[in-house]
């Protein structure tokens, strides 16, 4: 290494090392504390009657028989809930024109998707509550459905919210440069294609779960929560249940995955809180797998028409897309269901220097489950569209896949850059990541091998994608639009009397290793062994105020807050140590739990001694020395709306043209997420993300009938990607730290999911090229591939 040593080069550093997760053993031996592990005295259980229809008027609900059943505590319908809960509206002021009607915990008058909660039973066991649900008689009058996104705006389509006149929820147009002139140039070749991205969902190991208790004596509510944003949920419960925010405590202990699914507001969860308040006793609701498929937000559901004009030398002269996306009957609260489409408009073509760009997005209501933010919001769609069109363009002008990318990628020395869609990019490395990708995958050798195999009837393909990922969002993401969603995060670090430090942070752990990197950063910056760091997250009673972990912001924003707080505490401790040791604090350092001489590293005193003096024998300190062995810092991104990361990915597949089956042979990722805090955790994030991307590309699909019935709401019929079909996923890094923070970490949580489908689409189409056909619909199922091949 050249140049001066930085704070990251201190001895015994943890940042940059694959430190094992301190909480892994606890989870492995079954001592996790998930919401369903909560067993409280007097606790009762909720179950819901859900609409079997996609669109119907509720004529009557008869819960009388259920209410008298042994073990049933209460039966509620929509109007009972409405008496205790203000409805919510999933709009944000900066998403101009977005509209969505008020939504209640349980349906009022009309049901608008199959699975919408209609009535609630609270009973002494979940089984009894389900029995009672079976006794509730709901009389429906069927209404015409509008399910198909492509027909939702037709003049004769059923209108889901009559007060709106049609099913359009939001529309946005981006028009940058002179698109028409560029398409009209006589030296360009134009390619176009209609892509379809069908619905899928995030299947979390732990389902949505709520245990809520209410104490009428002091008007306090405690909510054991399985989500990602405890403070956001605190604000929502306060606003809609009319409780003081400070009287609501959210506790997220262990969370079994979320992927964006559990960050939203669901009627059944809110109804659980309302029931707890009415009954003044703890109520538990654990969504079962069927409920998860019917009501956990779905993702994607886009039909996009794209056109690209390329000059003879490969220059992208213009790009135009038209995105139509279905969001179900409401915009999800509080983050809305327009962000996915907005991201598609913002990010399509973002890795490339494109001057002329036009995009239209139309977000429409339909009688299906709600669609909203799931891991890599909008990214897989945006990346697959641009990369798919780029591949078409390369083929059309006879340029190689790599050459056309190199011709158009934004150069590594060009930053800062503002894209045609208005995105501000800095510290990206598209060219270096692509070069490294080609190197680690042995690109040229693979291509030669494929050409040889093709002549013997083996059809393999390679697909490449260059991507960006939105991470570390600033207040411009949600807060500016009026949502109580914090873009800043805080961390408190304190030294105890035994020389250990305790960190409480507002970012949250959902299984990705947040608590591990918090401990690493704190141990490293303060100067103790990592096993002397105790981390608390997820409990609003004990952590500073902050946003939580979503949008790939945990490490970049929360990590920086921990770094700043630990650094501040280190300064405060050295101040006290200087007084005790009668030397200047800048001659001292903290290493492995001891105060040492900064030059010789000779131990001067242990932290335990310092703690003993400060906490027990303050009489030994001068009266004017008032030690503060605790420090809190908050951090937000100020210079950019988002801190973008970039990466390059490649997939290798083998197609069986007789069956339409695709075998995944290899996958490679080169990711630049800035400073890598824990290489193993980052690689796990990338790999897990790629696997979810593979899911969307090949397996996962929420299949609806034409009248809005979800046909595969079980783990037997909804195909999540499984280990046996997964290829080896090789991950490498380029590290370009962001200048927006000392830590320099950007996000890494969503890149794999965002980029993998694009690479896989191109790989399959490469394999299909010998048959002079291609596919542009995901998931790429055997049947869709056989259709593309003209076999069926």
């Amino acid at each position, binding site marked *: 290494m050249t140049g001066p040593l930085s704070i990251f080069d201190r001895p015994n550093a943890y940042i940059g090392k694959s430190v094992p997760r301190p909480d892994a053993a606890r989870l492995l031996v079954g001592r996790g504390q998930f919401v369903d592990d909560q067993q409280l005295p007097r606790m009762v259980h909720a179950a819901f009657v859900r609409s079997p229809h996609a669109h119907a008027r509720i004529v009557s609900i008869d819960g009388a028989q259920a209410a008298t059943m042994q073990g049933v505590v209460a039966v509620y319908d929509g109007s009972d809930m409405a008496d205790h809960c203000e409805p919510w509206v999933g709009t944000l002021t900066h998403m101009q024109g977005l509209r969505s009607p008020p939504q209640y915990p349980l349906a009022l008058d009309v049901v608008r998707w199959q699975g919408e909660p209609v009535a609630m039973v609270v009973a002494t066991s979940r089984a009894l509550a389900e029995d009672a649900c079976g006794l509730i008689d709901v009389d429906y009058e069927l209404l015409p459905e509008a399910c198909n996104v492509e027909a939702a705006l037709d003049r004769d389509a059923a209108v889901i919210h009559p007060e709106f006149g049609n099913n359009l929820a939001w529309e946005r147009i981006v028009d940058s440069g002179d698109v028409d002139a560029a398409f009209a140039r006589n030296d360009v070749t134009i390619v176009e294609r209609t892509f379809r991205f069908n619905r899928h969902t995030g299947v979390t190991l732990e389902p949505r779960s709520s245990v809520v208790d209410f104490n009428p004596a002091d008007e306090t509510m405690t909510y054991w929560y399985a989500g990602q944003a405890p403070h956001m949920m605190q604000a929502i419960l306060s606003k809609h249940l009319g409780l003081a925010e400070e009287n609501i405590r959210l506790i997220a202990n262990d969370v079994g995955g979320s992927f964006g699914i559990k960050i939203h507001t669901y009627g059944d969860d809110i109804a659980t809180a309302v029931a707890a308040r009415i009954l003044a006793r703890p109520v538990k609701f654990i969504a079962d797998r069927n409920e998860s498929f019917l009501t956990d937000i779905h993702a994607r559901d886009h039909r996009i028409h794209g056109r690209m004009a390329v000059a003879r030398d490969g220059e992208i002269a213009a790009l135009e897309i038209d995105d139509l996306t279905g969001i179900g009957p409401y915009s999800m609260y509080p983050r809305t269901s327009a962000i996915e489409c907005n991201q598609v408009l913002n990010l399509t073509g973002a890795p490339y220097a494109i001057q002329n760009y036009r995009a239209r997005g139309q977000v429409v209501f339909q009688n299906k489950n709600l669609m909203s933010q799931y891991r890599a919001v909008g990214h897989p769609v945006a990346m697959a569209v641009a990369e798919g069109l780029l591949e078409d363009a390369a083929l059309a002008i006879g340029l190689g896949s790599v050459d056309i990318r190199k011709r158009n990628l934004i150069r590594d020395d060009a930053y800062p850059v503002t894209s045609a869609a208005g995105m501000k990019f800095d510290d990206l490395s598209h060219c270096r990541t692509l070069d490294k990708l080609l190197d680690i995958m042995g690109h040229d050798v693979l291509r030669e091998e494929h050409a040889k195999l093709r002549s013997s009837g083996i059809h393999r393909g390679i697909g490449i994608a260059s991507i960006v990922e939105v991470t570390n969002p600033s207040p411009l993401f949600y807060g500016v639009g009026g949502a109580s969603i914090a873009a800043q995060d805080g961390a408190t670090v304190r030294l105890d009397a035994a020389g250990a430090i305790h960190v409480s942070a507002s970012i949250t752990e959902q299984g990705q290793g947040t608590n591990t990197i918090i401990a690493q950063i704190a141990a490293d910056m303060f100067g103790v062994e990592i096993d002397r760091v105790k981390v608390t997250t997820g409990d609003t009673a004990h952590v500073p105020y902050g946003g939580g972990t979503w949008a790939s912001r945990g490490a970049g924003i929360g990590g920086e807050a921990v770094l700043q707080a630990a650094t501040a505490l280190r300064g405060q401790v050295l101040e006290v140590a200087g007084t005790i040791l009668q030397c200047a604090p800048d001659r001292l350092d903290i290493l492995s739990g001891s105060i040492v001489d900064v030059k010789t590293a000779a131990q001067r005193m242990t932290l335990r001694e310092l703690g003993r003096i400060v906490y027990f024998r303050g009489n030994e300190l001068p009266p004017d020395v008032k030690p503060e062995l605790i420090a809190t810092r908050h951090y937000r991104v100020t210079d950019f709306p988002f801190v973008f990361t970039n990466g390059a990915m490649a997939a290798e597949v083998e197609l069986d043209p007789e*069956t339409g089956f695709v075998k995944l042979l290899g996958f490679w990722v080169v990711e630049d997420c800035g400073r890598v805090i824990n290489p193993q955790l980052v690689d796990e994030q990338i790999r897990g993300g790629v696997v979810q991307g593979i899911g969307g590309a090949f*397996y996962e699909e929420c299949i609806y009938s034409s009248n809005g019935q979800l046909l595969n709401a079980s783990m037997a019929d909804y195909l999540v990607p499984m280990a046996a079909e997964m290829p080896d996923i090789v991950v490498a890094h380029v590290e370009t730290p962001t200048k927006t923070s000392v830590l320099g970490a950007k996000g890494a949580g969503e890149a794999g999911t965002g980029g993998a489908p694009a690479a896989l689409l191109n790989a399959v189409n490469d394999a299909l090229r010998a048959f002079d056909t291609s596919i542009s619909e995901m998931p790429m199922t055997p*049947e869709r591939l056989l259709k593309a091949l003209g076999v069926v």
Partner: protein
Amino acid sequence: MKAAEFDYAKPRTVDEALAILASHEGEVRPIAGGQSLMPMMNFRLAQPDMLMDLNALEELQGIRDEGGFIIIGAMTRYRELECSELIAAHIPLICAALPHIAHAAIRNRGTIGGSIALADPAAEMPALMLALEATITVVSSRGVRRILADEFFLGLYETALADDEIITEIHVPRSKAPAHFAFCELARRHGDYAIVGIAITAQEIMPMRGLRVALFSVSDRPVRAVAIEQALENTSVGDAGAMKLAVQAIGSMAFQDDLNATDKTKLHLVGVLLKRALTELCT
């Protein structure tokens, strides 16, 4: 997703079980490995009044070689079939199919009798019974019946088994040519129910004689493809004319759509699998 309330009985002998079936009012569902029935109960698609647990019935255990048959107790688990030397030596077709049946944890519990009694049209074991010319022995307090597999599977989850009967054992005739078999299925993920699948046995392969061809996941029940057998009887693999007739025979069969494929796709895929299975049969 909790099962509705039910009574539970665990008889120790077959006679005891039959007495329960004969005397209990309301629906009694025998439970073997529970790998299909328990999810159906938790979804409340099945709500029996009583669950009768067959796991203590020692008479339904074991695999033996007797009188020209391999006789498999109905409560034999997939895992026991996988580990059985008798099965490996005499019915290697079963060994070829087993790795495709779900996953190890499910094979540890699931039983051959349970699968046959359930008669899922996408399951492997019922189709194997057709290809192997198996006979299914069922008993009730009224007596014993031996039902040919060809006459056992009647429709979607519908069999010749009466409400008061249980399967006790399966007789598979010992073949002179146990190695003349082929098994192929197409499943999107390893262990899933197949989009389509095929099991073939033959007495001779040069040319092919005594063929039995069974298809699964194509219709409401496992299907014995007699028309394919006839088209290929006495022909050799690679006989284009015979293959054409066989594919025509497939075309005349009535297949049913499911979530993974239309009937048209299934017809195409059965053709592909037939070709591959015949190659496997004769190599």
